[in-house]
């Protein structure tokens, strides 16, 4: 047996966890300025959140599919997240079309079909997917650090942005720490099950992680002081606004205005 093959056999059974970052999109959306994308996706979310006509929500879903296709993110990510988002909407489909009617006694509970609930479930599903698709295409196509930097440039309070950046930076460290501890537990024969022992073990694992994070945070702060931290977290990324960004903002603004007019111009959709 070759060395490579024996190494492959000896590989740990724990699958490496996926990285916690967005892959750069292949399409032109990935190259757009994150500031432009943030502003547009926020305005779009707001508009969709307030939408009450299924026609507009359906238009939003179509737009979202267009954006995702334009971003070219890869099918795997797209499908898995689409499923995750629609678990919640599926749950609503289960409950919305029925109304609980109380009979004479507690045991006289009856379920009454409620057509309004069904319409609401449809509307909510369309809206949720419309926003999800836009978020995936616009925010999922930028690295997380770029988005946080863009938030700083958009005048989000600096304390909050500093916290975001530190949080995200050390999230990976703490996750790695967790995976190391978890592996050590596995080596010692830990098998999670539905029992008190498992829950206690995980609680102590969390305790260790908290203690280590506290101790690390002290070292991090000292290192920051060494580098002259005085309350300002200097940003090194400055985005350059291109003509494509202006074009994207203008186009999106136009689409948003048309959508808003469609809904609030008084045209009845029924």
């Amino acid at each position, binding site marked *: 047996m070759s060395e490579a093959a024996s190494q492959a056999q000896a590989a740990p059974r724990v699958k490496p966890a996926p990285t916690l970052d967005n892959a750069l999109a292949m399409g032109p959306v990935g190259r757009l300025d994150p500031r432009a994308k943030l502003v547009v*996706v926020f305005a779009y979310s707001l508009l969709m959140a307030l939408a009450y006509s299924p026609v507009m929500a359906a238009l939003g879903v179509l737009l979202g599919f267009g954006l995702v296709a334009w971003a070219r993110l890869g099918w795997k990510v797209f499908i898995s997240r689409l499923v995750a988002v629609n678990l919640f909407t599926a749950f609503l489909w289960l409950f919305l079309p029925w*109304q*609980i009617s109380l009979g004479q006694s507690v045991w006289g509970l009856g379920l009454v079909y409620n057509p309004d609930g069904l319409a609401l479930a449809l509307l909510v*599903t369309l809206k*949720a997917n*419309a*926003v999800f698709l836009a978020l995936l295409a616009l925010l999922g196509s930028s690295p997380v650090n770029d988005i946080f930097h863009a938030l700083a440039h958009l005048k989000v309070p600096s304390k909050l942005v500093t916290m975001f950046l*530190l949080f995200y930076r050390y999230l990976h460290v703490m996750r790695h720490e967790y995976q190391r501890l978890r592996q050590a537990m596995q080596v010692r024969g830990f098998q999670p099950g539905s029992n008190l022992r498992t829950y206690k073990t995980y*609680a102590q694992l*969390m305790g260790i992680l908290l203690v280590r994070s506290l101790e690390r945070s002290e070292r991090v702060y000292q290192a920051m002081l060494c580098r002259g931290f005085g309350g300002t977290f200097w940003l090194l990324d400055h985005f350059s606004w291109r003509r494509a960004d202006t074009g994207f903002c203008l186009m999106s603004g136009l689409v948003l205005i048309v959508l808003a007019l469609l809904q609030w111009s008084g045209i009845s959709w029924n």
Partner: protein
Amino acid sequence: MHISEGVLSGPVLAGGAVISAAGLALGLKNIDYDKLPRVALLSAVFFVASLIHLPVGPSSIHLVLNGLVGLILGWAAFPALFVGLVLQAVLFQFGGLTVLGVNTATMALPAVLGYYLFAPFLRGGGKTAPVIAAFAAGFCAILFSAVLTGVSLYLSGEAFLGAAWAIVVANLPGMIIEGVVTAVAVLFLRKVKPELLGMGPYVE
């Protein structure tokens, strides 16, 4: 317990945004710059915790630990949970941007409430009172979060009543497990790092 985008009505979204903005402002005011890395790294651990799935019978639930967040961080629970929710929106498109306010409030309000109700009992000398208080903090945090989620659904439309009840009932096993995990974690921290619970280094 996140509500996804597109479900809640405008007034509910606005209400959640106002509450969370106030909580964030208060929380950030309480964090001095020298404590910023501390809160950021603790938030990172809590985010990692939310990725952990514990087996419950044939299914599994993921940890939330907002009760423990509240006990350790007080009002800083608002920014701590907020950064996690923002990352979820950016990374997994879970939740969304306009529901951030509501989702932060439903998670952080119970955390802060637990801080005022239960944190004082953690510092006592005996073992019984801290264990009961910590269990209650973990249990109630999930209970109140589920109730607040249900209420925000119900306020958005009466048709959501059934779904709102289902959320509260479905979270019952989670409440008990979070209670146990919080209690054990608090006992551990009392022994190993009492500073995290607002206690001096050598209380006992």
